[in-house]
């Protein structure tokens, strides 16, 4: 019988099979990205994906390690009051650069490049970081390796301002043309790797920077970042051993990693803490000194709500242990506070509600009988609102609603679209005008918590008519001692003193319960077992320790 396929074709196909085999290289690691970068200039984009690649090439003065501690990268040391880097009044910061650092094109790094970075960030077209540098009054290169930065008043963000990387004056251009610099496509940096090739939408190839300073040399010769938009394809490549790192795998892939020895998952806490905001003021009346909320205005009720939640059930059962317990806004980093938080205690919750004048009614819902802010006969009924399209959040609210019903608290659980929940003052969003009982959503703070917690907890940050709705103190919590401590956190140049202040705020929040902390999210990356030295960090992008990566 005659074959259907001509013989020469069969021979050709077999030959092709032999030719195209690919060998595993020991000196090249492959990283899978879900999307391409739009630019490599960290001053013209806020996209998270940029900071997963660029820090391997463009380095900042200081970084933050996985424990939340600052460590020097291009600076000789982290400037503090103790080592003279920060003046006593906190208004002058002196940066001293490492000696002998050169850019990957051979030009030496100088203090003038730091000054240039400031100029580009503040005056460059398309700069998204001008606001972050606004507090700087003057910046001056004192000599080749010393930069002096002066602020009008002490600025708690002084360490964070240069976290996006230092730009080379000689290899960029006029800040007025920043959006079209060649640098954006072909950056010159001081990092362990240098850009070899960037094929848009396809891959980014980094090669070891031959001019990198001593002690910063990478183990790998080459790192290839492949853009693979399909998550299924990325997972298959990891399982097949064709890739070494997968950025941000979905939690639905956990079973896949469990089934193979080739791939590990490395997670770290994320900054996002899921919390309940309890409205302390009268609903929908955003004026100073408004009446207290009839139910939530009483601290005993708020404490009962905190005791009424089975945190272990939420964390271990509902979230399958993929989240961490949170007890205060200060969970991580140098400012982390040890605080036990509330435990699930229905007896205590019931006793507190009884004491607050809410007695059990015939239909299983408590009614007011001598409650301080509610007329007798008021039903103990609250509305709980979260945002939609987030299953875990929705399930969490439903579970809490069930637990509350057992305590005699009628709970109405609802979700609204994110763009509605997080609307602005001009939209008259319920969050801004205080037209809610309980809001449930996640928010968190970076390594410098000051701006975030001040916005969340200081009495001046309560949105109301008087301040045109500015601020994020949606619980409308007002505590004179907390205000004092939060102000201290913004003016003290001493990290230990600031931490003590924050932890006292955490205690006050715990006792007065404007917020109930449910849990903290965790996330990370999948990496091949043959890749050593890989570590996910809460505070930095994927490549923060790329020089330490090596292949077995």
């Amino acid at each position, binding site marked *: 019988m005659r074959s259907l396929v001509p013989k020469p074709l069969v021979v050709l196909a077999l030959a092709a*099979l*032999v030719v195209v085999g690919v060998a595993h290289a020991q000196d090249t690691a492959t990283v899978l990205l879900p999307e391409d970068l739009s630019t490599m200039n960290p001053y013209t984009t806020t996209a998270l994906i940029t900071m997963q690649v660029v820090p391997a090439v463009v380095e900042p003065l200081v970084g933050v390690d996985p424990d939340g501690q600052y460590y020097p990268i291009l600076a000789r040391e982290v400037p503090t009051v103790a080592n003279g880097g920060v003046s006593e009044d906190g208004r002058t910061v002196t940066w001293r650069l490492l000696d002998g650092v050169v850019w990957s094109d051979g030009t030496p790094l100088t203090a003038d490049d730091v000054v240039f970075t400031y100029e580009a960030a503040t005056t460059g077209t398309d700069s*998204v970081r001008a*606001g*972050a540098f606004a507090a700087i009054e003057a910046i001056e290169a004192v000599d080749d390796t010393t930069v002096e930065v002066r602020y009008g008043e002490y600025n708690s963000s002084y360490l964070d301002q240069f976290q996006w990387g230092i730009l080379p004056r000689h290899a960029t251009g006029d800040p007025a043309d920043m959006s079209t610099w060649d640098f954006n496509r072909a950056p010159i940096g001081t990092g362990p790797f240098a850009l070899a090739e960037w094929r848009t*939408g*396809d891959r980014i190839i980094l090669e070891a920077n031959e001019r990198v300073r001593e002690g910063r040399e990478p183990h790998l010769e080459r790192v290839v970042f492949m853009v693979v*938009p399909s998550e299924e394809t990325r997972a298959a490549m990891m399982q*097949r051993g064709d890739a070494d790192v997968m950025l941000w795998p979905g939690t639905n892939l956990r079973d896949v990693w469990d089934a193979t020895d080739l791939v590990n998952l490395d997670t770290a806490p994320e900054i996002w803490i899921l919390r309940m905001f309890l409205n302390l003021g009268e609903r929908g009346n955003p004026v100073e000194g408004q009446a207290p909320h009839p139910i939530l205005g009483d601290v005993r009720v708020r404490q009962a709500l905190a005791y009424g939640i089975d945190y272990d059930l939420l964390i271990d059962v509902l979230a399958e242990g993929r989240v961490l317990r949170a007890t205060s806004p200060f969970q991580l980093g140098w400012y982390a506070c040890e605080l036990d938080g509330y435990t699930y205690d229905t007896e205590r919750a019931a006793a507190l509600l009884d004491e607050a004048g809410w007695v059990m009614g015939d239909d299983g819902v408590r009614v007011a009988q001598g409650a301080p802010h509610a007329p007798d006969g008021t039903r103990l009924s609250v509305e709980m609102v979260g945002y939609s399209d987030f299953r875990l959040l929705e399930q969490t609210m439903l579970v809490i609603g069930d637990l509350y019903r057992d305590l005699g608290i009628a709970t109405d659980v609802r979700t609204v679209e994110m763009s509605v929940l997080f609307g602005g003052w001009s939209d008259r969003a319920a969050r801004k005008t205080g037209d809610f009982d309980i809001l449930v959503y996640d928010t968190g703070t970076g390594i410098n918590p000051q701006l975030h917690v001040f916005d969340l907890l200081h009495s001046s940050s309560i949105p109301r008519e008087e301040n045109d709705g500015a601020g994020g103190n949606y619980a409308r919590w007002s505590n004179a001692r907390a205000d004092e401590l939060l102000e201290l956190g913004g003016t003290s140049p001493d990290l230990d003193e600031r931490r003590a202040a924050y932890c006292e705020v955490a205690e006050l929040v715990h006792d007065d319960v404007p917020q109930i902390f449910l849990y903290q999210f965790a996330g990370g990356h999948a990496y091949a077992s043959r890749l050593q030295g890989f570590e996910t960090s809460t505070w930095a992008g994927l490549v923060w320790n790329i020089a330490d990566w090596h292949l077995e």
Partner: protein
Amino acid sequence: MIRYVVRRLLESVPLLIVVSALVFALLQASPGSPLAQLERDPTITQADLERIARERGLLDPAPVQYARWVAGALRGDFGRSMQTGRAVTTEILERLPNTAVLVLTAFVFTLLVAIPVGVLSAVRQYSPFDHTVTTLAFMGQSIPIFWLGLMLILVFYFALSNPFTGGPLFPPGGMATTGMEHSWTNRAWHLVLPVVMLSSTWVAWYTRFLRASMLEVLGQDYVRTARAKGLSERRVVYRHALRNAALPLVTLIALDLPMVFSGALFTETIFSWPGMGRLFFQSALRRDYPVLMAIVMFTSVLIVIANLLADVAYAYIDPRIRYE
């Protein structure tokens, strides 16, 4: 003929102007902003956002923005991408060859398979061959192509290994292995699965289409006349019947051809192919108006040209058709 072509081209100018205005208006009216991604970053200040919106001309009234776009487009300047800051034409020219290679290969493959199979299927109507082809064609039309793509990867990348090297039989995507971009065999190897995925639906449609139109033609008088003249069956089928049956096919090809420019989103996404489809999709997600406008306009121009080509091809294939 030349007069006809020129007239058709001139007629399309007002059409393209209307298209550009409509698309611009739709983009303006749709919710979302090119700066939305920036607004989500807690470290960016309101002052920064306003300055960037002003720098990019987003605060100007829509008619002013449109006039600026038209003025630029007439000079061949389609502006800069809001995401990358690069010229839109650079962005497009970078992706265009990738998409062209993929779509054209799939197109040629489709015609090479669909024409003989469709003809044979009609000539041997209700034969086992015809039944098999019909079944496969229905499957090809109804299988969601992203599912097919995933299955191709699962089978030919994940499950099956190359018996000689132990590596996968086919790559899971990309255009070439890093460092082997100049190897034709390597590139061809990377093309196989995406081309199969992209052509599966086309082959199915074209085969069915050609079968139907062949069946119609084979019953015509002139085919009987040709047979009566004593012409060989081969000559009857390919010279007399196919030439007439292919006429509607030309329309189909003309309608699909602009994909060479607009790209194939699903195939490009699943096989990590850096083509036009993904560029368009990414730009739509990020409301990158200049890129969106340019792609839509180029595609419109191509549709106009492809339709014109189809009409010209009619005249070539069917001498009865004449244009004044």
